[in-house]
């Protein structure tokens, strides 16, 4: 479905860009939500990531666009924005600490189920923020977003084997933080 997107983008950026947003907005938003110290800014940061991508694409020659791996490229952009945001926030001390992140309500479940799921998610989301880098990024990209290892390695700028070991160590650390009886 998304295989021909780089080619279509290289032929007509304006025509194909909306499809790029539709195809990857959930992945980009999920990363922003799970990696940001300010999850309430996740939508703004995601939108900014797509605007950066759009501006970059306007300046790229068609051949370069045609060869882009869009998903890892977009996720790299949003991760860079998040790093800049974190750096800026560290210069503004005592604002918000680690926040337990909850999922966005999709309005398709009952209040009881929602509360239960919400609870578990908030707890796990909170634990994720306790992971050190680069394990946190590795676990989020691999298991929350569902990225294949090849793309994970591309985003993290390391060999696949290294990416895998970041994931393994991240999961191990995460498990050690979870009390025995969870949901």
């Amino acid at each position: 479905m998304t295989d021909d997107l780089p080619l279509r983008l290289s032929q007509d950026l304006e025509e194909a860009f909306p499809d790029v947003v539709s195809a990857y907005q959930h992945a980009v938003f999920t990363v922003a939500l799970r990696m940001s110290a300010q999850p309430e800014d996740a939508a703004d940061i995601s939108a900014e990531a797509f605007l950066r991508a759009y501006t970059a694409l306007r300046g790229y020659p068609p051949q370069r666009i045609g060869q882009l791996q869009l998903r890892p490229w977009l996720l790299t952009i949003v991760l860079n924005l998040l790093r800049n945001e974190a750096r800026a926030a560290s210069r503004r001390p005592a604002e918000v600490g680690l926040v337990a992140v909850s999922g966005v309500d999709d309005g398709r479940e009952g209040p009881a189920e929602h509360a239960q799921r919400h609870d578990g998610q908030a707890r796990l989301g909170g634990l994720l923020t306790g992971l050190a880098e680069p394990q946190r990024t590795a676990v989020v990209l691999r298991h929350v977003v569902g990225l294949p290892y090849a793309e994970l390695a591309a985003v993290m700028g390391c060999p696949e084997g290294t990416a895998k070991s970041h994931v393994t160590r991240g999961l191990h650390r995460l498990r050690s933080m979870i009390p025995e009886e969870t949901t």
Partner: protein
Amino acid sequence: MTTVSTHDDRLAGELAGLSSPAPANFQDAVFARWVEVDGPVGALYVAFTDRGISYVCPTQWVGGEQDRFLDLYRSRFGRPLRPANRAPAGLAGALRSGKGAGLPYDLRSVGDFDRKVLAKTLEIPPGEVRPYAWIAREIGHPAAVRAAGSALGRNPVPILIPCHRVVRSDGATGNYGFGPQLKVDLLHVEEVNLEETRGLGRRGVHYVASDTTQVYCYPSCTHARRITPAHRVELANAAAASRAGYRACRHCRPG
């Protein structure tokens, strides 16, 4: 409820559950929308985002070519845009009345100084003009007259934020981003007494006063234009006004 075999699978499953769809209105934060509407002197292309109106371009400025407008917008704002089904609420009314102050604007691309200049410009009522120096003084930077002019030249939402109502102190209409003739045409539509203001300027007259109310104004001020010829006093500057014991009009605030 799925049954999971190992701790790893279960943890992986729970992590996958942390994935979140983007909010329903997410694309409104990425894409701007655009419409073509009737303006006071010809049609306009108007672009807007989820925050407000962000760009206005007379269609004649791009020779009526939609694609040139779209490209101008995309290069200036680095934002993709798509056609809108309808114009933003209040736009037609604001264009008809010449009162744009009530509309939401998206001025994220505009710096602090420029934003102050534009906010001040929004206060100038239709049918009146103010000098560049007035803007500079009113925003607390009386020496920044040229900077105020440059800020107006960069106004992304002309006509709605009426930078055409800011003119030179000598009564000449001055420059305009879309050419000086369009500025003159816009002021004529609003029935500004341009010729009179220019004539006064040429004779070194910058204010007019009433000898009954003892108030002095800019010549285009709605109060100045009500002064009957018998009671009308012409003044070169604020010093002459205060020597005569006149006070500045509270509506047009001439120095």
